[in-house]
C-alpha cells in the first residue's frame, strides 16, 4: 500500500508538471503583446524593453517556464495585468466560491442519485428502470445554460421564490448567501444526478449478476442484507471514482453556470481573464483548477484502493 501510495503521488506530481508545461506553452502562444496590455498603446520603446526585461520575457522559453514554476510553487503568482492585483488571493477567493457551489451541488445530487440508481438497477427492465433510464438520458442532454435559464425564469421570475442572480457580496454570511446559491447549485446538481445515478445503476446490475449474490440468497440471507451488506458495498466502489471524476465535469459546468447566474466563481474569472488576455491570471487560474481536479482523482484512487479488499497493492 505504501509503495502504491508513493507511486500514485509521484504520478500526480508528474502529471501536474506536464500539464503546467502544456498550459504555459499555450499561454505563451497568445497573440497580442504583453507590453501593450500593461503599458497601453503608444508606450516608449525604452519602457517596453524595460518591462520585457522586468517580466523576463526576453529569456529562453524554458528559463521563463522555470521562473514561473518556482514563483508559482513559492506562492508568488505575480500580478494580474487587467486588475492590477496580486493573483493568488484573487484566484483563491474565487476558487472558494466555486467549491462552495460544487459542494452544495454534490450534497443535493449524490444521495438521491445513488438511491435512484440502486432502485433502478434492482428493478432492471421494469417500469421504474425504464422511466429512470429515459429520464436521466434526457436530463444529461440538457445543457447547463438551458437548465439554468429554465430555473431562473420559472422559479425566480415566475414564482418569485428565489433571487435570479447569484452575485453574492464578498462579506455576506453563509446564511445570507444561501438563497442565492440554491438555483445555481440545483442546475449543477441536475446533470450530476443523472450522471451518478446512471453509473450506480450499471454498477448494481453488474453486481447482481455475480455468483456471490446467488450464494448469499441460497444460503438464506435476508434480501435486505444481501443488498445493503454485499451488493451496495461493491456497486458503490466505482461510484466513488465517478463522484471524483464528476468534480472535473463540475469545473467545466461551473464555467457556464457561473456565467448564467453572474456568480463570482473561478470559471467566470477565467472567461474574463481570457477575454482580457491576462496571461498570468489565466495561468494561475487554470493551474489551480487542474490541481483541484487531479487531487480529487488522486483521493478517489486512494479511497478506492483502501475500500476494496480485493485490491492488494504494492
Amino acid at each position, binding site marked *: 500500500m505504501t509503495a502504491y501510495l508513493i507511486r500514485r503521488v509521484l504520478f500526480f506530481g508528474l502529471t501536474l508538471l506536464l500539464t503546467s508545461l502544456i498550459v504555459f506553452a499555450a499561454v505563451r502562444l497568445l*497573440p497580442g503583446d504583453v507590453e501593450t496590455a500593461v503599458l497601453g498603446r503608444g508606450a516608449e520603446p525604452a519602457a517596453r524593453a524595460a518591462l520585457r526585461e522586468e517580466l523576463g520575457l526576453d529569456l529562453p522559453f524554458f528559463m521563463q517556464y522555470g521562473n514561473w514554476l518556482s514563483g508559482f510553487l513559492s506562492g508568488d503568482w505575480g500580478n494580474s495585468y487587467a486588475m492590477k492585483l496580486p493573483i493568488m488571493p484573487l484566484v483563491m477567493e474565487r476558487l472558494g466560491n466555486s467549491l462552495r457551489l460544487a459542494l452544495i451541488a454534490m450534497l443535493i445530487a449524490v444521495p438521491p442519485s445513488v438511491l435512484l440508481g440502486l432502485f433502478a438497477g434492482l428493478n432492471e427492465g421494469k417500469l421504474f428502470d425504464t422511466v429512470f433510464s429515459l429520464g436521466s438520458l434526457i436530463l444529461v442532454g440538457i*445543457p447547463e445554460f438551458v437548465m439554468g*435559464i429554465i430555473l431562473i425564469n420559472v422559479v425566480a421570475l415566475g414564482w418569485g421564490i428565489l433571487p435570479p442572480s447569484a452575485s453574492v457580496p464578498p462579506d455576506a454570511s453563509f446564511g445570507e448567501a444561501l438563497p442565492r446559491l440554491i438555483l445555481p447549485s440545483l442546475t449543477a446538481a441536475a446533470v450530476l444526478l443523472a450522471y451518478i445515478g446512471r453509473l450506480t445503476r450499471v454498477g448494481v446490475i453488474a453486481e447482481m449478476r455475480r455468483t456471490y449474490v446467488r450464494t448469499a440468497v441460497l444460503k438464506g440471507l435476508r434480501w435486505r442484507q444481501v443488498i445493503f451488506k454485499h451488493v451496495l458495498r461493491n456497486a458503490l466502489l466505482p461510484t466513488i471514482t465517478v463522484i471524483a471524476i464528476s468534480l472535473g465535469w463540475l469545473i467545466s459546468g461551473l464555467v457556464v453556470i457561473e456565467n448564467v447566474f453572474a456568480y463570482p466563481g473561478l470559471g467566470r474569472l477565467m472567461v474574463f481573464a481570457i477575454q482580457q488576455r491576462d496571461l498570468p491570471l489565466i495561468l494561475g487560474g487554470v493551474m489551480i483548477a487542474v490541481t483541484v481536479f487531479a487531487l480529487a482523482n488522486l483521493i478517489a484512487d486512494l479511497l478506492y484502493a483502501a475500500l476494496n479488499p480485493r485490491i492488494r497493492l504494492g
Partner: protein
Amino acid sequence: MSATSDPSKTDTGTMPTIRPLRLGALRRRGRLLRRLWSDAPISVIGGVGVLLFLLLALIGPYLTPYNPIANNFAERSETPSLAHPFGTDNFGRDILSRIIYGGRNIFALTGSATLIAVGLGLVIGLYVGYLGGWIDQIVMRLIDALLALPALLLTLLLLGALGNSRFTVLVAIVILYVPIVTRVVRSVVLDIKTKAYIEAAEIGGESRFHILFREMLPAVLPTLAVEGALRFSYAIFLVASLGFLGLGVTRPEPDWGLMVSEARDWYALSPHMMFFPAAAIVTLVVCVNLMADGLRRLLEYSEVD
C-alpha cells in the same frame, strides 16, 4: 497494400463465397436491429431523429425562403405563424431558418471534429497498444496530462491562444477527444493482442499494417462506434455551451447557443425566441445519446452471440 506485396497470401479466387457471406451479414444485422427495436424502441427512434436532423441540415436551406442573417424590421418579434412556423426574432429574422443554418454549422463543425478525433485516436491507440513499451508509456503519460485539464478550460485556453474562431473550436475538440478515444482503443487492443488469431498472423509473417488494420480493426470498430457517438454528443454540448458564452462564433452567424443567449434579454416579450433554439439543442443531444445507447446495446448483443 499488403495483399499484393505479400506472396504468402494464397486465399485468392474466393468470389463465390462472398455473396452468401454478405447476405448472411445483412440478415444478421437485420435481426439485431429487430431485437433492438423490441428491447429499446426509443434508441431506434433516437437514431432516426439524428438522421432527420442531418437531413434537415443538408436540404433545409433549399426549403426555407428566408435569409438567416438578413434583418427585416417590418416583421420584428412575431410569434409563430404559417409564414414563420417558429416566429421571428428581434431583428425580424426567421427563427426556423436560423435553426436550420445553425444546425448545418453544428453538424459540419462537430461532425468533422469528431471524425478527425476518432480517426487519430484510432491510429494512435492501435499503434501504442500493439507496440507497448516505452512509446506506450510516454503517450499514456501525455494523455494523462491532457485529461487532467477540464474540457471547457482547455477550450477557453486554446480560444485565447489561437484566436476566437470556429477553427479553434475544431482544434480544441480534436485535442480534447483524441486522448479519450486513444485510451478506449488501446484498452480493446490490449485485450485482443493475446488472442490466437493475432498470434497466427504474427507467425504467418503478416506486416504490422495488416495486423493492425485488417486483423485488429474489425474487433475495435464496435466499441469505437459507441465511443464516437458519445463524443459526438459531447461535442454538440460543448459547441452549444461555447456559443452561449459568445465564444467561437461571430454575430450575426446563426448559432443555437448564441441564439439562446441573445434571447435572454427578450424573454419577457417573446419567449419563443428562446424556446426553439433551446429545444433544438436538447432534442439533438438527447437523440444522439439515445443512438449511442442503441449502439451500445447492439455491441452487447454481438458480444453475447
